[in-house]
């Protein structure tokens, strides 16, 4: 027995040295892979920024990692060419903002409200209605688009931003997330207490429940905003007027033949379109990364 013990401990000691070498080797290997992945994630954006500063003819001759001096000229070309698109770059950003901001606010307010309705009240059909929300959660908007398009034409909401804003009130995934969050972080006793103080139900929701939900709202706000800001399919189907193009629709036009010959302008256009998102991301990445794990938002 004692022999065994000794041999085990020497073995452990010997292993220790090789073990820590192994750990080090593993560490170096893993870090290398991770660094490569980071480079792959950022490289296209880097290339885009570099090319935004290069002369179109130079871009065509090959790859470069050093910026050149054509940023301003490319910018001018972009402005000149995008002038023919019906919506200017700034117009497109404005249109996107007009749709995205109210849409996001509606999504958050009404989703929290709906979740609260399911959470705080016991009413007939509650289980069934909740099951309904769960069931429709995964139904993508794309499959209803033909009916939606024609229905909007009937309603006279075709080519109208409202057709893109109002539906934001009903966002099943956000409702689902909000209720999950409430279950974990919200106590009905506070509501009871407020009722004793004589507050009416909507006041309780607005002044007590909403503030308590801030962390969840913040996370969902980011995702709802990004999803709406980046949406191409629905606006593309629903908007007709040339001056109503959203930012992704503006981007889409850079794929048309007016731009194909001017890479410098394309790169700078892409750069401008993604810049707001990169800035938002830089400031909120902590919450975004944390929020992904929380909600599993994916559509």
């Amino acid at each position: 027995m004692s022999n065994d013990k000794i041999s085990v401990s020497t073995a452990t000691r010997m292993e220790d040295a090789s073990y820590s070498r192994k750990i080090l080797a593993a560490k170096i290997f893993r870090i290398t892979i991770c660094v490569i992945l980071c480079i792959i994630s950022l490289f296209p954006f880097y290339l885009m920024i570099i090319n935004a500063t290069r002369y179109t003819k130079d871009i065509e001759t090959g790859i470069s990692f050093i910026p050149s001096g054509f940023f301003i000229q490319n910018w001018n070309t972009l402005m000149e060419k995008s002038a023919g698109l019906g919506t200017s770059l700034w117009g497109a950003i404005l249109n996107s903002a007009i749709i995205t901001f109210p849409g996001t606010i509606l999504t958050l307010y009404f989703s929290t409200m709906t979740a609260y309705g399911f959470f705080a009240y016991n009413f007939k059909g509650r289980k069934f209605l909740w099951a309904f929300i769960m069931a429709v959660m995964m139904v993508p908007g794309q499959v209803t688009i033909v009916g939606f398009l024609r229905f909007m034409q009937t309603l006279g909401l075709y080519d109208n931003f409202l057709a893109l804003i109002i539906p934001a009130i009903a966002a099943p995934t956000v409702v689902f997330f909000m209720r999950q969050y409430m279950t974990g972080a919200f106590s009905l006793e506070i509501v009871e207490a407020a009722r004793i103080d004589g507050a009416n139900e909507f006041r309780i929701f607005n002044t007590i429940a909403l503030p308590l939900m801030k962390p969840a709202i913040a996370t969902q706000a980011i995702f709802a905003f990004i999803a709406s800001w980046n949406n191409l399919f629905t606006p593309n189907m629903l908007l007709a007027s040339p001056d109503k193009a959203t930012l992704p629709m503006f981007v889409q036009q850079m794929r048309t033949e007016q731009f194909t010959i001017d890479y410098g302008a394309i790169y700078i256009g892409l750069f401008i379109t993604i810049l707001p998102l990169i800035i938002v991301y830089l400031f909120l990445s902590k919450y975004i990364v944390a929020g992904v794990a929380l909600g599993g938002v994916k559509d």
Partner: protein
Amino acid sequence: MATQTVKKHKTIEYGRYGYLFIAPFFIVYLVFQLWPLIYTFILSFQDIYVKYGDEINDGFTLTKNYASVFVANDGTASMAIRTFGNTAIIWIFNFIPQILLSLLLAVWLTDTKVKLKGAGAFKVMVYLPNVITAASISILFFSMFGPNGPLTKLVMDLGWIDNNRFFIDNAAPTRGIISFIQFWMWYGNTTLLLISGVLGINPSIFEASDIDGCTGWQKFIHITLPMLRPIMLYVLVTSLIGGLQMYDIPSLFNVNMNTGRGMPDDASTTVTMYIRFLTKTGNFGRAAAVSVILFLVTLILSVLFFVFMGDRDKKAKKKG
């Protein structure tokens, strides 16, 4: 005391408020999503198309639209079937490497023995592509792999290809790049989900396995993987549903701008691109029929998801 009497009533007394709170959601949902869905069903049984710029409605048809979704005029598989196939191929080549890499990264980033510094920064960087407008990303990649793109030039200079139209004139590279973009945009997201899954595994299980002398590989196969199954299923189903709707990337990558269909020879036309094409050419009845088929496929997957979610809830309850 009025308040006291109120207090005595349980939440059930306030039940009617529940309806008020959930009413806006349901009204908007019914009007803007459920009715359009039903309406799409109805349209799929109507022979509606546009001829010479005018819409023609030849009335109810049980089979015409659906038949054309499955079989082309010459008896071969239809374009719709092809687009489902394209979508599936592009999705598979995005998903398999994505889940494998994400698993690897999730294990690495949660490994307490080999701690990696800067894991937080890493997560932020690999997740970045996911927040950027897909339309911009698609055009960015097209600019890089187009006939005059910098990466095309680079690969040509290396002598790997001899034709500057290699990436856009061949089906495999075009699909491959679209798969890669999807992979590139989503593996960060999947990694984060799997990390939260791994962190959710009770550490004592790992400790016990350490005492039993399990190797890292054994732990991965016998503990991590089985415990991650629910979250992996979730990732799989959401990715599959998202993948079926794939539009932004392929619709701006290698397409014929005149028809909006994927090149070369429809190799990169996805289902939603095809629905868009059908509405664009006025084939509303058939567009609706393809949508319904897409919906049914999605529904089956949703049911799977629902069943699985129920499972997980039950398990969670048992644990608690």
